[in-house]
């Protein structure tokens, strides 16, 4: 291979889109846990159900607040009335679980037979008295984490428009505030308010586990920034107030529809920042929010340096090593940027979908990081082709491939280290606090193989089908 001229700017390519990822309906698995009073009804076929049942493993046995509305031949050929059928099922859900919201997840099948879920929902909503939110999280249009994006975009339209007047209501509405005010009297709360700088309300969007919500909220509090609300909140009934002119910021790179909805429909101002993944990302995220709100950040240098110090034992394992992202969850650019900062070389960033506007700040940071670290700028491959990627992996021999489970075992059997990409979606990876967890994941295969390296067992397939 000849040494290519180092490219000046990021190179974007687009392949055939024949890649493996999870179906976007998988978002129900984490969203039903996040939104405690919700019920997710996936309107689809056995195929959808089989995927959910197998992908979610043990969770299915915990009496989840999600179910399939399984379409039968009569539904497909329109012998049955969609409205009557959905009404029957939703009444049953109301009777058994009494949720505060039912989220309908539209699938490929409802798209193809053109079932008018958005049209049916308002009528049924008034008939049964439970809000019905419609999200079309189907595999025709979206990949994996984009499912959450479609749900949150639909939820954004349900956020109240005006702050309630009475103080008690406010406390009821705002879970984070309640958490921060835990057990304090009213005067103390008033005193707490003085800890914040006076700024325009800020609402964050993106579903994160509660501990991470607390961590990021505290991180901004250190800068005197108050988080007025979070989309989604712990309960549907606690969705944040969003008034015209509020600031919003995303915490995950796959939320472009939600961002668009907040800007266009709710007239919010989007703070376009890199995402708080890795200490570098977290710092850039906070700095950008501070700068938009007119605040001078305090002590971020020390804070970031201190975190990096704690990470050194992991960083030294991966410094100088190469990594290849096959691409399946849209976290790839942020993770790649963090790993470049750790001293890794990124050979390829596969990604299902690249919104260059929503991810602009993240892409700029990636480019800057590569320049600063003297690392070649990676190619970003949108809609990758897994077969071609595997050929490139054979050629490039990366030290680590971040990939889906379909390819992980076969690559391992060929002596290539892999990390299962889906773990990054379920692990806590945001903020300063969790930078260690990201590296714990990234280094695990390398640490494992250090333990086994003297055994001579790295290639475990008999014949390589080389034709």
């Amino acid at each position, binding site marked *: 291979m000849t040494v290519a001229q180092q490219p000046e700017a990021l190179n974007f390519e687009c392949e055939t889109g024949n890649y*493996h990822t999870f179906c976007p309906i998988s978002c129900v698995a984490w969203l039903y846990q996040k939104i405690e009073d919700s019920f997710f009804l996936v309107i689809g076929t056995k195929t959808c159900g089989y995927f959910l049942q197998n992908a979610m493993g043990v969770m299915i*046995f915990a009496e989840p607040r999600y179910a399939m509305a399984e379409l039968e031949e009569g539904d497909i050929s329109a012998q049955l009335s969609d409205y009557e059928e959905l009404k029957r099922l939703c009444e049953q859900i109301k009777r058994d679980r009494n949720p505060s919201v039912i989220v309908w997840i539209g699938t490929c099948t409802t798209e193809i037979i053109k079932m008018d879920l958005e049209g049916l929902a308002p009528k049924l909503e008034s008939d049964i008295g439970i809000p019905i939110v419609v999200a079309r999280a189907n595999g025709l*249009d979206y*990949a994996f984490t984009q499912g959450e994006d479609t749900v949150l975009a639909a939820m954004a339209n349900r956020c109240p428009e005006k702050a309630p007047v009475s103080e008690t209501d406010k406390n009821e509405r705002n879970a984070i505030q309640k958490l921060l005010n835990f057990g304090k009297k009213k005067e103390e709360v008033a005193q707490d308010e003085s800890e914040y700088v006076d700024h325009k309300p800020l609402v964050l969007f993106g579903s994160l586990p509660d501990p991470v919500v607390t961590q990021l909220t*505290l991180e901004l509090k250190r800068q005197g920034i108050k988080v007025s609300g979070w989309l989604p909140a712990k309960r549907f009934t606690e969705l944040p107030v969003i008034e015209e002119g509020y600031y919003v910021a995303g915490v995950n790179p796959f939320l472009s529809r939600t961002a668009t909805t907040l800007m266009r429909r709710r007239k919010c101002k989007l703070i376009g920042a890199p995402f708080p993944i890795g200490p570098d990302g977290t710092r850039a995220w906070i700095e950008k929010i501070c700068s938009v709100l007119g605040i001078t950040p305090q002590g971020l240098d020390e804070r970031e340096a201190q975190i990096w110090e704690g990470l050194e034992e992991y960083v030294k394992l991966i410094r100088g090593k190469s990594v290849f992202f096959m691409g399946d969850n849209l976290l790839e650019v942020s993770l790649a940027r963090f790993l470049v900062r750790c001293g890794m070389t990124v050979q390829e960033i596969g990604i299902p979908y690249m919104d260059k506007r929503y991810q602009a700040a993240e892409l700029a940071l990636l480019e800057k990081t590569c320049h600063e670290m003297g690392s070649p700028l990676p190619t970003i491959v949108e809609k990758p082709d897994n077969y071609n990627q595997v050929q490139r992996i054979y050629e490039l021999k990366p030290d680590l491939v971040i990939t889906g*489970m379909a390819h992980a075992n*076969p690559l391992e059997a060929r002596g290539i280290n892999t990390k299962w990409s889906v773990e990054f979606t379920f692990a806590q990876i945001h903020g300063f606090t969790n930078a260690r967890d990201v590296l714990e994941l990234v280094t695990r295969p390398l640490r494992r193989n250090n333990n086994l390296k003297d055994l001579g067992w790295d290639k475990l397939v008999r014949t390589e089908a080389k034709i």
Partner: protein
Amino acid sequence: MKLAYWMYAGPAHIGTLRIASSFKNVHAIMHAPIGDDYFNVMRSMLSRERNFTPVTTSVVDRNVLARGSQEKVVDNITRKDAEEHPDLIVLTPTCTSSILQEDLHNFVERAQLEAKGDVMLADVNHYRYNELQAADRTLHQIVQYYIEKARKRGELPEGKTEKPSVNIIGTSTLGFHNNHDCTELKRLMADLGIEVNTLIPEGASVNDLKKMPKAWFNLIPYRELGLATAQYLQEQFGTPYIDITPMGVVETARCIRKIQQVVNAQGAEVDYEEFINEQTLHVSQAAWFSRSIDCQNLTGKKAVVFGDNTHAAAMTKILAREMGIHVVWAGTYCKYDADWFREQVSEYCDEVLITDDHGAIGDAIARVEPSAIFGTQMERHVGKRLDIPCGVIAAPIHVQNFPIGYKPFMGYEGTNQITDLIYNSFTLGMEDHLLEIFGGHDTKEVISRGISADSDLNWSKDGQAELNKIPGFVRGKVKRNTEKFARERGFKEITTEVLYAAKESVGA
């Protein structure tokens, strides 16, 4: 529409993919949207496959929806043909392509003009068949295709093999303990002096299928997979088939006697009675077990059985006939083949349950309160909730049901494995019961354990609340590490901030 949380048998295309990827050098192309290739994950994870699963997708997206697949499917087939040179490419429809009603037949015919390998369209309707039925149909379709192809070219071999021989039909990828059963069946055939002519679909090449007529008979170990193929071969070549599952001592003997009858009818002169006797009394421990004191203690204990037809029927007979256990009800989720199940088990249980509603199964278990359950992973979880032990005997299954150790369910070694499975389920239940009567294990409190036992540290309310959000199984460790961190730095109270500072510093 049907409200569903759980299904026992998967969608049709899973069955087709199981057959296609069981064969060597056969590639399946799904006509499906992004994300429907979850089969690859299952095969790679559950059976820990070292090779890439030979399944790719011809992606159905918005463009396809608007304009049809046009050249896409054909291009994908010819591309795969050039890349991997498979003997056969099976175009696999999914629920999505079923309703798009594209002319997939036409795509296959066009691709066949260019492709070097064979191309076929799996003939399964998503809305009519489930995974098991689709697998049975696809296997039949592939066998028929290659028999007819060989016949057209005059390549069908004449006559039978010299020595008695068998085609074993039905072991497939992701089948419950199929690889172990397969080894055990080959061993049994060798002991009986019967050559294995072909073994399909697992590990077979499609080019070997034309050899199938040379076998003296076909053995169908699993009720769900292979029957259509066996019936086809009987029609075409008069090859008799045996569909007695050799699972359990009595059924294994019955299967062997049937083999004896079938090969003797074709001129062999074999007598397996001595072999059956020797195996039953001295090789398999199951017969001796049923005589032993251990098994006596199980007499009349209540059990319930649920699974696919093959395993649920065999288990019911073993429990009732070979161990004297009281099977209160036995059930299957193979509703499409319910009559067969009823006929098999009716005399061995009080009640027969035919359903694929896991809620109804759960209720039926709770109502009966058996001492042990034999079912799928779903029943295992019901058992956990009700504190009843469960032995897993059928799919749907998890990765722990793909053991590395040798654990067949069939043949004589299979009888030993099943005996362990049954006995361990019951004794564990017994142990629990005794523990309860005598007030559990040692009940003394642990007096001191490390630093967190005599904590001089205060957890603030918010710190404590945050700690409680951490999953139970790591909470103790996080608590200890946080307190160590706080003590070292002289914090008197542990707040949320301190908790996370500790995490940042030591990874607590």
